[in-house]
């Protein structure tokens, strides 16, 4: 019986429903110490003194650590620029200055309060505008001395942390010859990932090695970053995964892990646990970056796009993490949905004295799509043509290329997506029938399946079950507890009950690129398939001898091996495994996979750190909103997703990813926002940071398009992210439609809505 396309219950459901599941915050040990961090109270300043003498002598304190006690080195995903503790210079509010480990959390907190801090506050570079002002103070005056973590250096200077430029002289010609120029300026605020388990970590130093317990999306990245900070070989760090209480991109790089590790060493090897309180978590979380974008389009009389200029500024905060890649993503997105002709793209990542930003689900695609789709609506309105029609006339097609020259083989799926959407919600009819204060929006997008490598070892157990050893993580998505489990079960005709997947352990499992970029089911599922084929070969070898048959005459059915066409010859996998173990040795096989590099033109832009857009998927969204003219609140009345998925492995899982992503997107579209004033966040608690509640949300109508990918596991591609990238786009377009006013800021705030209504009434 096939388990593909079945909504099997996720393997970790029972543990999570009974309270048995152990998250990092639940870690305990008899000798456990509790850590706390002293964090900078100012966004920018010079550290004159940190006096820890009083703290060290307090009861229960086992170690106090500052920059003086750790290796004098810098670490970073892309650039070695980040110190573990600020030693001389503070660059954002919340930056760690010192740490304490003590017998109880209260003692640790008391010791932190006893540390005497002398900081001379300096002028903070509070936002991108300030950073880009001539003679602005530099967030990193020593930027020239920083070294890339690997490979060649890339374009960066002053307060610019990373820059992509794709220039084209024909763009200026296009604007000179244009009959119509449409110009927009957009902004988008930061979004907090708001996982419900705050960041936490346990560090243990023993036998000269560091062991880290953490519920983390990317254990091998933790291994490598901790090794950088503590100046040891990566193999001297072992990272053990736990259940993850949500991540959404925020748990891809180190948070508290290196602090827990070094404090354990200084405290004589006792385990040290660190848990952020919610305010610390918000102040230091690598949130989705705020951004601005100017788009100018040159058109001829018929509305054909002659040229476009796109200038995007993204707020890096004080340190880069993985953000240096993002300008490249903007570049790829710029040509991924609509034909753009001659285009100039300038995308800059800008240092500010604010919390470092980072990855959140759908990275820059979320605001990029909102900006692009609003611009498309604007052009259509200027031309006096239907918004949907205008999109259809400008869609990229199969065989068209991204701006890097990468050919999109399946881009016609975008058109197919519009057709599917039309069946569910005929556009003209929706438009005609919409009530007063209602508006509709439609948007299209292309998204990636991240290519990073993954690996799997399959062990056939003597009871006929299979253990899957992998460092792939299930951040809650079901990629492992449904996806990998069902893929392995399917290869052997087993049920999910016959599959055991280990928790990640970097000492045991092969490298894995982490739960990011919608990659796990596709990449690790493929690796599992490769391992399964090899293991099946071994099983057939053994079974052939036991059944006295030719290897090629065997088949595997429902967890049994038999001769093709002879139902009486079936032999359970357990018998074969036992025979193998005691004759030739236990059976196991490994598989590794990473997407093959995609051909592209390396000369198309400078600063292209992320060179291509692997295994794209295609998407169309529709939303209808209702604006409340009294409160300015916006309610989403209807929301439809057409999503290309390759192949559905578990329908309940796919639905959960799409519904969950859309709701996060609606949250950002309408209220989720970390606002910055004076280089500090205004929102510092979950009370202030509004998150979507059950009462707010529509039930998303989901239409999946299956288009099996030749290299995906049974055809599956990435599913987790794409549904968030178009939500702010369709909502902003729909609100603009409802009020006949452009909404070019994300989130669309009630204040802005009311302002537009008042203005509209004035105009009569």
């Amino acid at each position, binding site marked *: 019986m096939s388990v593909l396309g079945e*909504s099997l*219950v*996720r393997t*970790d*459901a*029972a*543990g*999570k*429903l*009974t*309270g*048995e*599941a*152990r*998250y990092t*915050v*639940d870690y*305990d040990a008899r000798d456990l110490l509790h850590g706390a961090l002293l964090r900078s109270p100012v966004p920018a300043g010079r550290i004159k003194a940190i006096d820890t003498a009083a703290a060290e002598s307090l009861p229960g304190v086992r170690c106090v650590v500052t920059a003086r006690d750790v290796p004098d080195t810098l670490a970073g995903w892309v650039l070695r620029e980040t110190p573990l503790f600020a030693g001389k210079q503070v660059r954002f509010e919340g930056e760690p200055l010192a740490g304490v480990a003590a017998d109880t959390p209260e003692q640790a907190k008391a010791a932190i309060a006893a540390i005497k801090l002398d900081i001379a506050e300096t002028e903070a570079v509070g936002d991108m505008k300030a950073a880009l002002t001539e003679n602005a103070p530099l967030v990193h005056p020593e930027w020239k001395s920083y070294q890339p973590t690997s490979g060649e250096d890339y374009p960066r200077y002053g307060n610019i942390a990373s820059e992509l430029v794709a220039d084209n002289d024909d763009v200026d010609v296009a604007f000179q010859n244009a009959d119509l120029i449409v110009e927009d300026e957009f902004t988008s605020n930061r979004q907090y*990932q*708001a*996982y*419900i*388990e*705050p960041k936490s970590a346990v560090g243990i130093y023993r036998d000269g090695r560091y062991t880290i317990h953490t519920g983390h999306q990317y254990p091998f990245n933790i291994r490598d970053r901790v090794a950088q900070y503590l100046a040891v070989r990566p193999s001297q760090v072992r990272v053990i995964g736990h*259940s*993850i*209480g*949500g*991540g*959404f991109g925020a748990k891809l790089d180190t948070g508290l892990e290196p602090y827990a590790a070094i404090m354990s060493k200084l405290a004589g090897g006792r385990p040290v646990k660190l848990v952020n*309180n*919610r305010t610390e978590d918000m102040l230091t979380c690598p949130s989705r970056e705020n951004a601005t974008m100017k788009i100018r389009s040159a058109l001829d009389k018929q509305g054909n796009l002659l040229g476009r200029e796109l200038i995007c500024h993204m707020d890096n905060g004080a340190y880069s993490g993985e953000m240096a890649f993002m300008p490249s993503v903007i570049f790829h997105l710029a040509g991924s949905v609509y034909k753009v002709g001659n285009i100039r793209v300038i995308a800059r990542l800008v240092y500010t004295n604010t919390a470092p930003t980072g990855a959140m689900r759908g990275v820059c695609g979320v605001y990029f799509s909102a900006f692009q789709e609003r611009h498309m609506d604007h052009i259509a309105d200027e031309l006096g043509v239907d918004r949907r029609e205008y999109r259809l006339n400008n869609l990229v097609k199969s065989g068209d290329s991204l701006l890097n020259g990468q050919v999109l083989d399946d881009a016609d799926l975008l058109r197919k997506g519009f057709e599917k959407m039309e069946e569910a919600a005929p556009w003209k009819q929706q438009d005609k029938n919409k009530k007063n204060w209602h508006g509709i929006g439609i948007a299209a997008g292309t998204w990636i399946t991240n290519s990073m490598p993954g690996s799997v070892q399959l062990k056939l157990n003597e009871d006929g079950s299979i253990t899957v050893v992998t460092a792939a993580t299930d*951040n*809650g*998505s*079901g990629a492992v507890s449904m996806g990998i489990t069902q893929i392995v079960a399917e290869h052997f005709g087993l049920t999910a009950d016959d599959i055991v997947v280990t928790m990640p352990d970097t000492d045991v499992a092969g490298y894995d690129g982490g739960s990011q970029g919608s990659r796990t089911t596709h990449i690790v599922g493929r690796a599992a398939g490769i391992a399964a084929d090899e293991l099946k070969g071994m099983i057939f070898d053994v079974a052939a001898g036991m059944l006295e048959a030719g290897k090629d005459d065997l088949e595997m059915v429902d967890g049994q091996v038999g001769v093709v066409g002879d139902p009486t010859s079936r032999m359970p996998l357990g018998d074969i495994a036992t025979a193998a173990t005691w004759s030739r040795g236990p059976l196991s096989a490994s598989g590794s996979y990473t997407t093959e590099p995609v051909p592209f033109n390396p000369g198309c832009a400078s600063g292209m750190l992320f060179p291509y857009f692997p295994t794209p998927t295609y998407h169309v969204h529709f939303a209808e909103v209702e604006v409340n003219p009294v409160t300015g609140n916006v309610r989403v009345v209807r929301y439809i997703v057409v999503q290309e998925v390759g192949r559905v492995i578990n329908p*309940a*899982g796919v*639905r*959960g990813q799409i*519904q*969950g*992503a*859309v*709701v*996060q997107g609606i949250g950002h579209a309408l209220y989720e926002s970390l606002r910055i004033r004076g280089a500090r966040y205004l929102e510092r*608690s*979950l*009370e202030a940071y509004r*998150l*979507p*509640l*059950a*009462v707010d*949300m529509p*039930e*998303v109508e989901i239409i999946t398009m299956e288009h099996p990918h030749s290299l995906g596991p049974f055809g599956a591609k990435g599913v987790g992210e794409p549904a968030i990238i178009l939500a702010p786009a369709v909502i902003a377009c729909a609100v603009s439609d409802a009020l006949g006013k452009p909404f070019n800021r994300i989130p669309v705030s009630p204040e802005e809505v009311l302002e537009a209504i008042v203005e509209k009434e004035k105009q009569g």
Partner: protein
Amino acid sequence: MELIFRVNGRSERLELQGHETLLDVLRNDLCLTGTKDGCREGECGACTVLVNGRAVDSCIYAAMAAYDADIETVEGLAKNAGLNSLQNAFAESGGVQCGFCTPGFLMMLTALLDKYPHPDRDLVRDALSGNICRCTGYAQIEEAVARHVEQRSGE
């Protein structure tokens, strides 16, 4: 100070300082770590437990206020036969993703369903106004409640 109360039907007697929250007592003193600490400000609902049948945010509930009370936590839901009907409905509907909010949702819904065995969708949504789920977007949680109600009606 002495706290005497019942947790999941068992009598417990603890010596406390007096300022502890119910959440800390459950997690630290009784090792009932199924109840989660998400925000410590009564916003996220991950710490929801029942005090004499009423759902409270245990992170802002003084432990001593539970003197002589009956406390129910997520650990008390599954009986010997396995998951209870609501837990099963969550599993089957895909109402669990990362799982960190799940114990709070289960306890809030247990309180609701005890009072209103056949809640309509609006009532369910209203009841969940104090519980944040960041993963599911709520649809499959609402469906789990509907599935549970339907299955229980069929019994």
